[in-house]
Protein backbone atom coordinates (compact mmCIF):
# COMPACT_ATOMS: atom_id res chain seq x y z
CA UNK A 1 0.00 0.00 0.00
CA UNK A 2 1.25 3.47 -0.87
CA UNK A 3 0.38 6.16 1.66
CA UNK A 4 0.42 9.94 1.46
CA UNK A 5 1.08 11.82 4.71
CA UNK A 6 0.10 15.47 5.10
CA UNK A 7 3.01 17.32 6.69
CA UNK A 8 2.15 19.81 9.44
CA UNK A 9 4.36 22.89 9.14
CA UNK A 10 4.49 26.68 9.04
CA UNK A 11 6.41 27.00 5.74
CA UNK A 12 9.66 27.04 7.70
CA UNK A 13 9.67 24.11 10.08
CA UNK A 14 8.05 20.69 10.10
CA UNK A 15 5.92 20.23 13.22
CA UNK A 16 6.22 17.19 15.47
CA UNK A 17 2.59 16.24 14.75
CA UNK A 18 3.84 14.93 11.40
CA UNK A 19 6.06 12.30 13.02
CA UNK A 20 3.29 10.28 14.63
CA UNK A 21 1.45 10.22 11.31
CA UNK A 22 4.55 8.85 9.59
CA UNK A 23 4.64 6.04 12.14
CA UNK A 24 0.96 5.23 11.55
CA UNK A 25 1.45 5.33 7.78
CA UNK A 26 4.50 3.07 7.93
CA UNK A 27 2.27 0.41 9.52
CA UNK A 28 0.20 0.49 6.33
CA UNK A 29 2.95 0.54 3.74
CA UNK A 30 5.25 2.81 1.78
CA UNK A 31 5.29 6.36 3.17
CA UNK A 32 5.13 9.36 0.87
CA UNK A 33 4.88 12.78 2.47
CA UNK A 34 3.19 15.88 1.11
CA UNK A 35 4.26 19.41 1.93
CA UNK A 36 1.71 22.01 0.88
CA UNK A 37 2.91 25.56 1.28
CA UNK A 38 4.67 28.54 -0.15
CA UNK A 39 8.41 29.03 0.16
CA UNK A 40 8.44 25.72 2.00
CA UNK A 41 11.50 24.04 0.41
CA UNK A 42 13.25 23.85 3.78
CA UNK A 43 10.34 21.85 5.19
CA UNK A 44 10.66 19.38 2.32
CA UNK A 45 14.32 18.88 3.20
CA UNK A 46 13.48 18.26 6.88
CA UNK A 47 10.82 15.74 5.96
CA UNK A 48 13.18 13.94 3.59
CA UNK A 49 15.37 13.10 6.59
CA UNK A 50 12.54 11.56 8.62
CA UNK A 51 13.09 7.84 9.04
CA UNK A 52 10.65 5.78 7.03
CA UNK A 53 9.69 8.39 4.43
CA UNK A 54 10.59 7.32 0.87
CA UNK A 55 9.35 10.25 -1.19
CA UNK A 56 8.47 13.84 -0.34
CA UNK A 57 6.10 15.66 -2.66
CA UNK A 58 6.47 19.41 -2.31
CA UNK A 59 3.75 21.65 -3.68
CA UNK A 60 5.26 25.11 -3.40
CA UNK A 61 2.63 27.55 -4.54
CA UNK A 62 1.39 30.94 -3.37
CA UNK A 63 -2.15 29.55 -3.31
CA UNK A 64 -1.05 27.07 -0.65
CA UNK A 65 0.69 29.50 1.69
CA UNK A 66 -2.03 29.18 4.33
CA UNK A 67 -3.12 25.66 3.38
CA UNK A 68 -6.69 26.71 2.76
CA UNK A 69 -8.75 23.54 2.43
CA UNK A 70 -10.47 24.79 -0.72
CA UNK A 71 -7.12 25.02 -2.52
CA UNK A 72 -5.45 22.03 -0.89
CA UNK A 73 -8.14 19.37 -1.21
CA UNK A 74 -8.40 19.15 -5.03
CA UNK A 75 -4.62 18.80 -5.30
CA UNK A 76 -4.53 16.05 -2.68
CA UNK A 77 -7.46 14.30 -4.32
CA UNK A 78 -5.58 14.26 -7.63
CA UNK A 79 -2.46 12.85 -5.92
CA UNK A 80 -4.63 10.12 -4.45
CA UNK A 81 -4.98 8.63 -7.93
CA UNK A 82 -1.56 7.13 -7.33
CA UNK A 83 -1.81 6.53 -3.56
CA UNK A 84 -3.99 4.20 -1.50
CA UNK A 85 -4.28 6.01 1.81
CA UNK A 86 -4.17 9.67 2.84
CA UNK A 87 -3.19 10.31 6.45
CA UNK A 88 -3.27 13.70 8.16
CA UNK A 89 -2.55 14.65 11.75
CA UNK A 90 -5.70 15.25 13.82
CA UNK A 91 -4.69 18.89 14.21
CA UNK A 92 -6.94 21.77 13.22
CA UNK A 93 -5.17 21.79 9.83
CA UNK A 94 -5.69 18.07 9.27
CA UNK A 95 -9.27 18.14 10.53
CA UNK A 96 -10.05 21.02 8.20
CA UNK A 97 -8.58 19.48 5.06
CA UNK A 98 -9.00 15.69 5.33
CA UNK A 99 -12.84 15.47 5.24
CA UNK A 100 -12.87 17.73 2.20
CA UNK A 101 -10.48 15.33 0.48
CA UNK A 102 -12.57 12.35 1.60
CA UNK A 103 -15.75 13.80 0.11
CA UNK A 104 -14.01 14.56 -3.18
CA UNK A 105 -12.90 10.92 -3.30
CA UNK A 106 -16.29 9.63 -2.10
CA UNK A 107 -14.61 8.01 0.89
CA UNK A 108 -15.81 7.85 4.49
CA UNK A 109 -13.00 9.24 6.62
CA UNK A 110 -11.72 7.43 9.69
CA UNK A 111 -11.11 10.17 12.25
CA UNK A 112 -8.53 10.32 15.00
CA UNK A 113 -7.19 6.75 14.85
CA UNK A 114 -5.47 5.27 17.89
CA UNK A 115 -4.05 2.17 16.21
CA UNK A 116 -3.66 0.39 12.89
CA UNK A 117 -4.99 -3.15 13.25
CA UNK A 118 -4.63 -4.09 9.58
CA UNK A 119 -4.74 -2.46 6.14
CA UNK A 120 -8.41 -1.64 6.53
CA UNK A 121 -9.09 -1.85 10.28
CA UNK A 122 -8.38 0.78 12.88
CA UNK A 123 -9.37 1.77 16.41
CA UNK A 124 -10.68 5.22 17.22
CA UNK A 125 -12.18 6.95 20.25
CA UNK A 126 -15.87 7.82 20.32
CA UNK A 127 -18.00 9.51 23.00
CA UNK A 128 -15.13 11.69 24.21
CA UNK A 129 -12.89 8.66 24.55
CA UNK A 130 -15.35 6.86 26.82
CA UNK A 131 -15.48 4.08 24.25
CA UNK A 132 -13.02 2.75 21.70
CA UNK A 133 -14.47 1.54 18.40
CA UNK A 134 -12.78 -0.92 16.07
CA UNK A 135 -13.81 0.00 12.53
CA UNK A 136 -13.19 -1.63 9.17
CA UNK A 137 -13.36 0.47 6.03
CA UNK A 138 -14.78 -0.92 2.81
CA UNK A 139 -13.59 2.04 0.76
CA UNK A 140 -10.89 1.30 -1.83
CA UNK A 141 -8.94 4.38 -0.73
CA UNK A 142 -8.54 5.34 2.89
CA UNK A 143 -8.68 8.84 4.35
CA UNK A 144 -7.51 8.95 7.93
CA UNK A 145 -6.65 11.44 10.64
CA UNK A 146 -4.20 10.30 13.28
CA UNK A 147 -4.18 11.07 17.00
CA UNK A 148 -0.66 12.28 17.70
CA UNK A 149 -0.43 10.93 21.23
CA UNK A 150 -1.33 7.39 20.14
CA UNK A 151 1.73 6.72 17.96
CA UNK A 152 5.46 6.98 18.62
CA UNK A 153 7.21 9.75 16.79
CA UNK A 154 9.30 8.70 13.79
CA UNK A 155 12.98 9.68 14.08
CA UNK A 156 13.80 13.04 12.49
CA UNK A 157 17.12 11.73 11.19
CA UNK A 158 18.12 8.68 9.24
CA UNK A 159 15.87 8.97 6.22
CA UNK A 160 16.97 10.00 2.75
CA UNK A 161 13.79 10.42 0.78
CA UNK A 162 13.74 11.80 -2.72
CA UNK A 163 12.04 15.17 -3.14
CA UNK A 164 9.64 15.75 -6.02
CA UNK A 165 7.88 18.93 -6.98
CA UNK A 166 4.12 18.90 -7.40
CA UNK A 167 2.31 21.43 -9.53
CA UNK A 168 -1.31 21.98 -10.32
CA UNK A 169 -2.45 23.85 -7.24
CA UNK A 170 -4.45 26.98 -7.82
CA UNK A 171 -6.82 29.43 -6.23
CA UNK A 172 -10.30 28.00 -5.84
CA UNK A 173 -11.81 31.45 -5.77
CA UNK A 174 -13.94 30.31 -2.84
CA UNK A 175 -11.96 31.65 0.09
CA UNK A 176 -9.18 34.03 0.95
CA UNK A 177 -6.86 34.27 3.91
CA UNK A 178 -7.30 37.50 5.87
CA UNK A 179 -5.12 37.34 8.95
CA UNK A 180 -3.74 35.20 11.72
CA UNK A 181 -3.21 35.77 15.42
CA UNK A 182 -0.67 33.20 16.45
CA UNK A 183 0.43 33.30 20.06
CA UNK A 184 4.18 33.66 20.25
CA UNK A 185 5.51 31.90 23.25
CA UNK A 186 8.80 30.59 24.53
CA UNK A 187 6.89 27.79 26.17
CA UNK A 188 6.80 24.27 24.82
CA UNK A 189 3.78 23.56 22.63
CA UNK A 190 1.03 21.76 24.49
CA UNK A 191 1.02 18.71 22.26
CA UNK A 192 4.75 18.14 22.67
CA UNK A 193 5.40 19.47 26.21
CA UNK A 194 6.88 17.03 28.74
CA UNK A 195 5.11 18.75 31.60
CA UNK A 196 1.83 20.63 31.43
CA UNK A 197 0.40 22.85 34.14
CA UNK A 198 -3.29 23.31 33.50
CA UNK A 199 -5.74 25.63 35.21
CA UNK A 200 -9.49 25.62 35.61
CA UNK A 201 -12.39 27.83 36.51
CA UNK A 202 -11.37 27.89 40.17
CA UNK A 203 -8.61 30.35 39.27
CA UNK A 204 -11.37 32.96 39.07
CA UNK A 205 -9.81 35.50 36.70
CA UNK A 206 -7.25 36.00 33.96
CA UNK A 207 -5.05 37.88 36.46
CA UNK A 208 -5.12 35.05 38.99
CA UNK A 209 -4.49 32.48 36.26
CA UNK A 210 -1.37 34.38 35.24
CA UNK A 211 -0.31 34.99 38.83
CA UNK A 212 -0.74 31.40 40.03
CA UNK A 213 -0.22 29.12 37.02
CA UNK A 214 2.51 30.92 35.08
CA UNK A 215 5.24 30.93 37.78
CA UNK A 216 4.84 27.19 38.35
CA UNK A 217 4.98 26.52 34.61
CA UNK A 218 8.06 28.75 34.30
CA UNK A 219 9.81 26.91 37.10
CA UNK A 220 9.06 23.52 35.57
CA UNK A 221 9.64 24.58 31.95
CA UNK A 222 6.11 23.43 31.34
CA UNK A 223 3.43 24.14 28.77
CA UNK A 224 0.24 25.79 30.00
CA UNK A 225 -3.17 24.30 29.43
CA UNK A 226 -6.68 25.06 30.60
CA UNK A 227 -10.11 23.56 30.97
CA UNK A 228 -12.94 24.64 28.72
CA UNK A 229 -14.46 26.58 31.61
CA UNK A 230 -11.31 28.67 32.01
CA UNK A 231 -11.20 29.39 28.27
CA UNK A 232 -14.90 30.22 28.07
CA UNK A 233 -14.48 32.59 31.02
CA UNK A 234 -11.73 34.36 29.10
CA UNK A 235 -8.86 33.59 31.49
CA UNK A 236 -6.74 32.30 28.59
CA UNK A 237 -7.07 32.05 24.78
CA UNK A 238 -8.74 29.15 22.96
CA UNK A 239 -5.48 27.46 21.98
CA UNK A 240 -4.90 26.56 25.65
CA UNK A 241 -7.93 24.28 25.80
CA UNK A 242 -7.34 20.62 26.60
CA UNK A 243 -10.22 18.23 26.05
CA UNK A 244 -12.56 16.37 23.73
CA UNK A 245 -12.78 19.23 21.29
CA UNK A 246 -9.59 21.05 22.20
CA UNK A 247 -6.11 19.60 22.30
CA UNK A 248 -5.38 16.00 23.14
CA UNK A 249 -2.23 15.80 25.25
CA UNK A 250 -0.23 13.03 26.87
CA UNK A 251 2.75 14.58 28.66
CA UNK A 252 4.99 12.89 31.22
CA UNK A 253 3.36 15.00 33.92
CA UNK A 254 0.01 16.76 33.83
CA UNK A 255 -0.74 19.03 36.76
CA UNK A 256 -4.44 19.91 36.94
CA UNK A 257 -5.07 22.91 39.14
CA UNK A 258 -8.60 23.89 40.09
CA UNK A 259 -10.00 21.60 37.41
CA UNK A 260 -12.95 19.47 38.47
CA UNK A 261 -12.45 16.87 35.75
CA UNK A 262 -15.51 16.81 33.48
CA UNK A 263 -15.44 13.85 31.08
CA UNK A 264 -14.82 16.25 28.22
CA UNK A 265 -11.63 17.46 29.92
CA UNK A 266 -10.50 13.97 30.91
CA UNK A 267 -10.85 12.97 27.25
CA UNK A 268 -7.99 15.30 26.43
CA UNK A 269 -5.46 14.35 29.10
CA UNK A 270 -6.13 10.96 30.63
CA UNK A 271 -3.31 9.32 28.69
CA UNK A 272 -0.77 11.49 30.50
CA UNK A 273 1.85 9.40 32.26
CA UNK A 274 1.47 10.99 35.67
CA UNK A 275 -1.53 13.09 36.59
CA UNK A 276 -1.36 15.43 39.57
CA UNK A 277 -4.51 17.12 40.81
CA UNK A 278 -4.79 20.03 43.19
CA UNK A 279 -8.35 20.86 44.08
CA UNK A 280 -10.27 22.14 47.08
CA UNK A 281 -13.13 19.70 46.51
CA UNK A 282 -12.09 16.26 47.63
CA UNK A 283 -14.94 14.69 45.62
CA UNK A 284 -13.86 16.28 42.33
CA UNK A 285 -13.83 13.62 39.57
CA UNK A 286 -10.28 14.61 38.66
CA UNK A 287 -9.10 12.67 41.72
CA UNK A 288 -10.47 9.46 40.21
CA UNK A 289 -7.82 9.58 37.52
CA UNK A 290 -5.04 11.39 39.39
CA UNK A 291 -1.94 9.49 40.44
CA UNK A 292 -1.19 12.09 43.06
CA UNK A 293 -3.91 14.22 44.57
CA UNK A 294 -3.73 17.14 46.96
CA UNK A 295 -6.91 18.45 48.50
CA UNK A 296 -6.06 22.07 49.17
CA UNK A 297 -6.83 25.67 48.36
CA UNK A 298 -4.90 26.23 45.16
CA UNK A 299 -4.15 29.86 46.05
CA UNK A 300 -2.04 28.64 48.97
CA UNK A 301 -0.81 25.33 47.63
CA UNK A 302 0.37 26.35 44.17
CA UNK A 303 2.63 29.25 45.23
CA UNK A 304 4.09 26.97 47.91
CA UNK A 305 4.63 24.24 45.31
CA UNK A 306 6.27 26.76 42.97
CA UNK A 307 8.66 27.69 45.73
CA UNK A 308 9.53 24.14 46.69
CA UNK A 309 9.95 22.34 43.37
Amino acid at each position, binding site marked *: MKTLVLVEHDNKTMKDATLAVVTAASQLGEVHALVLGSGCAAVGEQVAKVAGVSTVHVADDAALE*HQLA*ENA*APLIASLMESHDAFLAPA*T*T*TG*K*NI*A*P*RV*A*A*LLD*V*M*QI*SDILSVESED*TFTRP*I*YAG*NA*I*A*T*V*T*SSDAKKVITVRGTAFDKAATEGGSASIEGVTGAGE*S*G*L*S*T*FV*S*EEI*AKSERPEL*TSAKIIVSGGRALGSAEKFEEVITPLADK*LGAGIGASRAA*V*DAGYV*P*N*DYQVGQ*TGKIVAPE*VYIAIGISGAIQHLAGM*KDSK*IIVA*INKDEDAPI*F*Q*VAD*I*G*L*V*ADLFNAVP*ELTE*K*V
Partner: protein
Amino acid sequence: MKILVPVKRVIDYNVKPRVKSDGSGVDLANVKMSMNPFDEISVEEAIRLKEAGKAEEIIAVSVGPQKAQETLRTALAMGADRAILVVTDEEVEPLAVAKILAKIVEEEQPQLVITGKQAIDDDSNQTGQMLAALLGWGQGTFANTVELDSDSITVKREIDGGLQTVKLNLPAVVTTDLRLNEPRYASLPNIMKAKKKPMDEKTPADYGVDIAKRLTTTNVSEPPVRQAGEKVEDVDALVAKLKAVGAI
Protein backbone atom coordinates in the same frame (compact mmCIF):
# COMPACT_ATOMS: atom_id res chain seq x y z
CA MET B 1 -31.15 35.03 2.74
CA LYS B 2 -31.93 31.55 3.95
CA ILE B 3 -29.74 29.74 6.45
CA LEU B 4 -29.75 25.97 6.74
CA VAL B 5 -28.84 24.57 10.16
CA PRO B 6 -28.22 20.82 10.35
CA VAL B 7 -28.61 19.46 13.89
CA LYS B 8 -28.04 16.02 15.42
CA ARG B 9 -29.72 14.22 18.26
CA VAL B 10 -27.03 12.81 20.53
CA ILE B 11 -26.46 11.56 24.05
CA ASP B 12 -26.79 14.44 26.50
CA TYR B 13 -23.57 16.28 27.24
CA ASN B 14 -23.80 15.46 30.95
CA VAL B 15 -24.39 11.72 30.64
CA LYS B 16 -21.46 9.39 31.04
CA PRO B 17 -21.68 6.87 28.19
CA ARG B 18 -21.69 3.17 29.09
CA VAL B 19 -20.29 0.57 26.76
CA LYS B 20 -22.52 -2.48 26.25
CA SER B 21 -20.99 -5.64 27.63
CA ASP B 22 -21.32 -7.47 24.30
CA GLY B 23 -19.10 -4.90 22.59
CA SER B 24 -21.82 -3.89 20.16
CA GLY B 25 -21.86 -0.21 21.05
CA VAL B 26 -22.79 2.34 23.66
CA ASP B 27 -25.99 1.78 25.60
CA LEU B 28 -28.47 4.48 24.64
CA ALA B 29 -31.59 2.85 26.05
CA ASN B 30 -33.24 5.15 28.60
CA VAL B 31 -30.44 7.64 28.29
CA LYS B 32 -31.19 11.35 28.10
CA MET B 33 -30.73 12.60 24.55
CA SER B 34 -30.29 16.25 23.52
CA MET B 35 -29.23 18.42 20.66
CA ASN B 36 -25.52 18.16 19.94
CA PRO B 37 -24.05 21.15 21.86
CA PHE B 38 -22.15 22.47 18.83
CA ASP B 39 -25.38 22.41 16.83
CA GLU B 40 -27.11 24.47 19.52
CA ILE B 41 -24.42 27.06 18.95
CA SER B 42 -25.19 26.87 15.21
CA VAL B 43 -28.91 27.43 15.76
CA GLU B 44 -28.14 30.34 18.06
CA GLU B 45 -25.81 31.95 15.53
CA ALA B 46 -28.39 31.64 12.76
CA ILE B 47 -31.01 33.26 15.00
CA ARG B 48 -28.66 36.10 15.87
CA LEU B 49 -28.02 36.71 12.16
CA LYS B 50 -31.76 36.79 11.57
CA GLU B 51 -32.29 39.13 14.50
CA ALA B 52 -29.61 41.39 13.06
CA GLY B 53 -31.64 41.60 9.85
CA LYS B 54 -29.08 39.65 7.84
CA ALA B 55 -31.18 36.55 7.23
CA GLU B 56 -34.86 35.99 6.56
CA GLU B 57 -35.43 32.32 7.17
CA ILE B 58 -33.80 29.57 9.23
CA ILE B 59 -34.40 25.96 8.27
CA ALA B 60 -33.32 23.33 10.78
CA VAL B 61 -32.68 19.86 9.41
CA SER B 62 -31.86 16.56 11.05
CA VAL B 63 -31.06 13.11 9.72
CA GLY B 64 -31.97 10.48 12.27
CA PRO B 65 -34.69 8.48 13.97
CA GLN B 66 -38.28 9.68 14.39
CA LYS B 67 -37.34 10.96 17.84
CA ALA B 68 -34.98 13.47 16.27
CA GLN B 69 -38.11 15.55 15.78
CA GLU B 70 -37.73 16.51 19.46
CA THR B 71 -34.34 17.95 18.60
CA LEU B 72 -35.84 19.85 15.69
CA ARG B 73 -38.63 21.14 17.95
CA THR B 74 -35.90 22.49 20.23
CA ALA B 75 -34.37 24.31 17.27
CA LEU B 76 -37.80 25.68 16.35
CA ALA B 77 -38.41 26.77 19.93
CA MET B 78 -35.09 28.59 19.95
CA GLY B 79 -36.15 30.48 16.83
CA ALA B 80 -35.75 28.45 13.64
CA ASP B 81 -38.67 28.96 11.24
CA ARG B 82 -39.26 25.47 9.92
CA ALA B 83 -37.72 22.04 9.98
CA ILE B 84 -36.97 19.04 7.79
CA LEU B 85 -36.59 15.61 9.35
CA VAL B 86 -34.96 12.95 7.22
CA VAL B 87 -36.12 9.84 8.99
CA THR B 88 -34.07 6.68 9.20
CA ASP B 89 -33.35 4.19 11.93
CA GLU B 90 -30.02 3.34 10.36
CA GLU B 91 -26.89 4.94 11.69
CA VAL B 92 -25.94 7.43 8.97
CA GLU B 93 -22.28 8.23 8.47
CA PRO B 94 -21.07 11.83 7.95
CA LEU B 95 -20.46 11.26 4.22
CA ALA B 96 -24.06 10.12 3.67
CA VAL B 97 -25.40 12.94 5.88
CA ALA B 98 -23.40 15.40 3.78
CA LYS B 99 -24.88 13.92 0.60
CA ILE B 100 -28.42 14.27 1.93
CA LEU B 101 -27.70 17.83 3.05
CA ALA B 102 -26.29 18.64 -0.39
CA LYS B 103 -29.61 17.57 -1.93
CA ILE B 104 -31.55 19.69 0.53
CA VAL B 105 -29.31 22.63 -0.29
CA GLU B 106 -30.11 22.15 -3.99
CA GLU B 107 -33.81 22.33 -3.19
CA GLU B 108 -33.76 25.11 -0.63
CA GLN B 109 -30.94 27.26 -2.04
CA PRO B 110 -29.66 28.66 1.27
CA GLN B 111 -26.73 31.07 1.09
CA LEU B 112 -25.27 29.76 4.30
CA VAL B 113 -25.12 26.44 6.14
CA ILE B 114 -24.11 26.59 9.81
CA THR B 115 -23.51 23.36 11.66
CA GLY B 116 -21.55 22.08 14.65
CA LYS B 117 -17.90 21.24 14.10
CA GLN B 118 -18.41 17.77 15.52
CA ALA B 119 -21.03 15.63 17.17
CA ILE B 120 -20.17 14.51 20.67
CA ASP B 121 -21.16 10.90 20.00
CA ASP B 122 -19.00 9.78 17.07
CA ASP B 123 -16.57 12.72 17.37
CA SER B 124 -15.99 12.59 13.60
CA ASN B 125 -15.68 16.30 12.78
CA GLN B 126 -16.39 15.74 9.08
CA THR B 127 -19.91 16.64 7.95
CA GLY B 128 -19.48 20.38 7.35
CA GLN B 129 -16.23 19.99 5.41
CA MET B 130 -17.70 17.16 3.35
CA LEU B 131 -20.81 19.17 2.53
CA ALA B 132 -18.66 22.12 1.44
CA ALA B 133 -16.65 19.80 -0.82
CA LEU B 134 -19.74 18.22 -2.38
CA LEU B 135 -21.25 21.63 -3.07
CA GLY B 136 -17.99 23.21 -4.21
CA TRP B 137 -18.41 25.89 -1.54
CA GLY B 138 -15.94 27.53 0.79
CA GLN B 139 -15.71 26.32 4.38
CA GLY B 140 -15.12 28.22 7.60
CA THR B 141 -14.50 25.54 10.20
CA PHE B 142 -14.21 25.91 13.99
CA ALA B 143 -15.74 29.39 13.94
CA ASN B 144 -15.07 31.70 16.86
CA THR B 145 -16.63 34.82 15.30
CA VAL B 146 -18.52 35.37 12.06
CA GLU B 147 -19.38 38.51 10.18
CA LEU B 148 -21.95 38.13 7.44
CA ASP B 149 -22.15 40.49 4.49
CA SER B 150 -24.40 40.30 1.45
CA ASP B 151 -21.95 38.34 -0.68
CA SER B 152 -19.33 37.07 1.74
CA ILE B 153 -18.78 35.86 5.28
CA THR B 154 -15.67 36.52 7.34
CA VAL B 155 -14.91 33.73 9.78
CA LYS B 156 -12.42 33.87 12.62
CA ARG B 157 -11.38 30.27 13.20
CA GLU B 158 -10.00 28.60 16.32
CA ILE B 159 -6.80 26.86 15.23
CA ASP B 160 -4.08 25.07 17.18
CA GLY B 161 -1.77 28.08 17.32
CA GLY B 162 -4.42 30.72 17.97
CA LEU B 163 -6.89 32.31 15.57
CA GLN B 164 -7.08 32.53 11.79
CA THR B 165 -9.43 34.74 9.83
CA VAL B 166 -10.67 33.75 6.37
CA LYS B 167 -13.16 35.35 4.04
CA LEU B 168 -15.52 33.08 2.13
CA ASN B 169 -17.61 33.95 -0.87
CA LEU B 170 -21.25 33.06 -0.38
CA PRO B 171 -22.74 30.53 -0.45
CA ALA B 172 -20.58 28.88 2.19
CA VAL B 173 -20.48 26.37 5.03
CA VAL B 174 -19.53 27.40 8.56
CA THR B 175 -18.87 24.96 11.41
CA THR B 176 -19.11 26.25 14.95
CA ASP B 177 -16.67 26.11 17.82
CA LEU B 178 -17.46 26.63 21.49
CA ARG B 179 -16.75 30.33 21.78
CA LEU B 180 -18.97 31.50 18.92
CA ASN B 181 -21.87 32.28 21.25
CA GLU B 182 -23.82 31.10 24.25
CA PRO B 183 -27.06 29.47 23.09
CA ARG B 184 -30.30 30.73 24.56
CA TYR B 185 -32.85 28.64 26.37
CA ALA B 186 -36.20 28.34 24.67
CA SER B 187 -38.92 30.11 26.62
CA LEU B 188 -42.16 28.31 27.41
CA PRO B 189 -44.27 30.44 25.03
CA ASN B 190 -41.74 29.75 22.28
CA ILE B 191 -41.81 26.03 23.03
CA MET B 192 -45.59 26.15 22.61
CA LYS B 193 -45.29 28.15 19.39
CA ALA B 194 -42.73 25.71 18.03
CA LYS B 195 -45.31 22.95 18.07
CA LYS B 196 -47.15 24.76 15.31
CA LYS B 197 -44.16 25.48 13.12
CA PRO B 198 -43.93 23.36 9.96
CA MET B 199 -41.87 20.19 9.94
CA ASP B 200 -41.48 18.17 6.75
CA GLU B 201 -40.71 14.51 6.92
CA LYS B 202 -38.55 12.87 4.29
CA THR B 203 -36.46 9.75 3.91
CA PRO B 204 -32.94 9.30 2.50
CA ALA B 205 -34.58 7.55 -0.49
CA ASP B 206 -36.54 10.75 -1.27
CA TYR B 207 -33.19 12.35 -1.98
CA GLY B 208 -31.83 9.33 -3.82
CA VAL B 209 -28.94 9.00 -1.40
CA ASP B 210 -27.42 5.61 -0.66
CA ILE B 211 -26.74 5.53 3.09
CA ALA B 212 -25.03 2.13 3.13
CA LYS B 213 -22.20 2.25 5.62
CA ARG B 214 -18.61 2.37 4.50
CA LEU B 215 -17.25 1.69 7.95
CA THR B 216 -18.22 -1.40 9.86
CA THR B 217 -17.83 -1.23 13.61
CA THR B 218 -16.75 -4.68 14.72
CA ASN B 219 -16.27 -3.92 18.38
CA VAL B 220 -16.77 -1.16 20.93
CA SER B 221 -14.83 -1.48 24.14
CA GLU B 222 -14.10 0.43 27.30
CA PRO B 223 -10.88 2.39 27.25
CA PRO B 224 -8.20 1.24 29.67
CA VAL B 225 -9.34 2.35 33.11
CA ARG B 226 -7.05 4.61 35.05
CA GLN B 227 -6.83 3.83 38.70
CA ALA B 228 -6.94 6.63 41.21
CA GLY B 229 -3.61 7.00 42.93
CA GLU B 230 -3.09 8.38 46.38
CA LYS B 231 -3.85 11.64 48.04
CA VAL B 232 -1.05 13.41 49.80
CA GLU B 233 -1.36 15.53 52.93
CA ASP B 234 0.44 18.69 51.98
CA VAL B 235 2.71 20.38 49.49
CA ASP B 236 5.86 18.91 51.03
CA ALA B 237 4.48 15.43 50.58
CA LEU B 238 3.49 16.29 47.02
CA VAL B 239 6.99 17.51 46.20
CA ALA B 240 8.52 14.41 47.78
CA LYS B 241 6.19 12.18 45.81
CA LEU B 242 6.88 13.99 42.53
CA LYS B 243 10.60 13.54 43.12
CA ALA B 244 10.15 9.89 44.07
CA VAL B 245 8.44 9.06 40.79
CA GLY B 246 10.95 11.08 38.83
CA ALA B 247 8.37 13.57 37.66
CA ILE B 248 10.56 16.56 38.49
